[in-house]
């Protein structure tokens, strides 16, 4: 019974679900190539160097995040996340990585990345939408906001580097970040391009849609189908194809236009409200924070993509009163909808 629930509600911050010889091993190799002491590197990760050689050691997101924190501290250079990101995709992560190398175009690559993110990007969950002009990818933490800047830098670098390698073209990406401009901005320029916006509401990248469906040189439209079936099998062997927070986000997202509360959410996940609360707390978040996050992202989507006005957005998000909506919006974003949407 316990395992069924765990399977349904997604991998959690302490679920052993990341193959140690995938992304974590790449980081270890990077650190060792810079003469970092392996004992210090693995401090408080509860892992040994040998664990990374075996094909069946699984580690938890929490252990992986500790490893990231250690590497970042020991390497003490501001290009670590970018060097790491460059090596992440397509990667050598089984069938899913192989599929990425056979894709026909950029759209298919991003779709595979989203579908198999539990394997390809276990710490940051990519999601997409598009309007007439642009295709957007935005990232939310799969399990924890710890080391957010590092994981965002490496995830975005990974996508941009992979796309430029597979397409053999220089694509004009725009990246926006929900944090301040860092003082090592040069690393962003060289690795992500110069079209950068800081202090935004989310971590999001966009590319003009004209690049999306161009056929790539290594496309293998026939053989990719078999590879995708293999990838599905690969995903099924994992504890889960989505994280617990992914599932919460997706559930709230598809029910955002009706009243929601903790009890309803808990019922849907087959948990008691108390254990739901405890689980959210374990991920350093709460029901209110999660619903605010989805509402914020939805409001921005409705405004920018669907071009709804404030009144309509408030109605869609179940606010009867504009004053309430304004106040809530201010809490999510730190600014009023009139100011943010006037930009």
């Amino acid at each position: 019974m316990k395992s069924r629930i765990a399977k349904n509600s997604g991998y959690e911050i302490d679920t052993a679900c990341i193959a140690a010889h995938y992304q974590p091993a790449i980081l270890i190799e990077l650190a060792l190539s810079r003469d970092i002491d392996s004992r210090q590197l693995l401090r408080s990760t509860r892992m040994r160097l040998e664990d990374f050689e075996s094909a069946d050691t699984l580690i938890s997101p929490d252990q992986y995040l500790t490893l990231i924190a250690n590497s970042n501290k020991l390497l003490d250079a501001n290009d670590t996340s970018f060097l790491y990101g460059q090596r992440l995709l397509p990667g050598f992560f089984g069938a899913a990585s192989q599929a990425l190398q056979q894709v026909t175009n950029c759209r298919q690559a991003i779709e595979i990345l989203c579908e198999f993110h539990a394997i390809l990007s276990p710490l940051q969950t990519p999601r997409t939408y598009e309007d007439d002009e642009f295709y957007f990818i935005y990232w939310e933490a799969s399990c924890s906001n710890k080391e957010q800047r590092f994981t965002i830098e490496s995830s975005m670098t990974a996508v941009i580097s992979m796309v430029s390698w597979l397409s053999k073209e220089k694509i004009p990406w725009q990246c926006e970040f929900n944090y301040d401009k860092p003082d090592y901005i040069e690393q962003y320029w060289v690795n992500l391009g110069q079209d950068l916006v800081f202090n935004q509401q989310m971590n999001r990248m966009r590319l003009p849609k004209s690049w999306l469906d161009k056929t790539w040189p290594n496309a293998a439209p026939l053989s990719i189908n078999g590879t995708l079936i293999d990838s599905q099998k690969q995903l099924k062997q994992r504890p889960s194809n989505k994280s617990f927070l992914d599932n919460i986000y997706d559930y709230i997202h598809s029910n955002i236009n009706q009243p929601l509360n903790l009890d309803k959410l808990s019922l849907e996940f087959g948990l008691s409200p108390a254990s739901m609360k405890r689980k959210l707390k374990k991920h350093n978040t709460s029901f209110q924070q999660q619903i605010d996050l989805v509402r914020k992202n939805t409001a921005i989507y409705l405004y920018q993509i669907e071009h709804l006005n404030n009144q309509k957005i408030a109605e869609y998000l179940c606010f009867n009163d504009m004053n309430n909506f304004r106040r809530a919006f201010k809490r999510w974003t730190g600014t009023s909808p009139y100011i943010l949407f006037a930009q």
Partner: protein
Amino acid sequence: MKKRAFLDTAYFYGLLVSVISGIAIYRNWGDIKTLDHVNWLDVMAEGSMVVLALFWLILLLRSRPAGRVTHLLALGLCGIIFSWSMDLLDEFIHMPSTLIWHNWLESLPIPIALIFLSIGIYHWHREEIAISAQMVKRERYFREHRFFDKLIPVGGAAYLKKQLKLSLNDSKKQQQPLSLIAIDLDNFNAINRRYGVQEGDHILQLICQLLLLNLRDDDLICRLAGDRFVVLLNNTNEAEATEIAADLQLTVAGFTYRTKQGNKRVSLTASVAITVANADNSDSLIERLNLKLTQIKQQLKHSA
């Protein structure tokens, strides 16, 4: 940089032996003081001097390559540590004042040690001058190791910004033009993916040396990030800078790397951009330069 193995234990053994024999001599001819006769303030002060001098010795031996200068400095420090530890011993053991030579044990090593240390520091000074001559084009005015790149022996972006600020001030005062060149390797990402990051790192190191060879003594090269270098040219107008940039581009194009594994030929090309300082500050100048480079690279892709 590889950490050096902690091999110079000979100094520590020598020190240990001399301190132990010092203790033996004191024990033999002196009387141990009772605890209430010990001045603990003196013990603390003299003890911490010994500990600090030991710390200097360890740092010295761990950071410097073996050689004459290191040897002299280490001997000098050993002498100081010995003499200070005898001083410390004096606090616990009372020597009869009839003995003259026990005073030597305390006082004689210090001048000898200081002579060694002074000779060592003099040669160190000569050595620094020799090394600085090699560091021309990589550093100017001031040295700050924290800004140095971990992989490639030139300054990073932070060092460039500091230097640029100084140079901008100078150029305003002297009414001289100041130019910047950015050099970015084309498709370096693909090289890293095809041959591995170790080869990529090695290529960057070699390219950096190559660029250094083509610069004047007054120019400064820094690694901005990844495979992008920036050269700071004092007293240089746009026409001269364009010429230098073209030369650097040619140099990179003429260079062929052979991979360590498999001995494969790798040829490289680079994109360059130049900008001349107007009324801007160092940040906006670097940003403008990079924007220009991005545009140049974009056009390159379209025409290819």
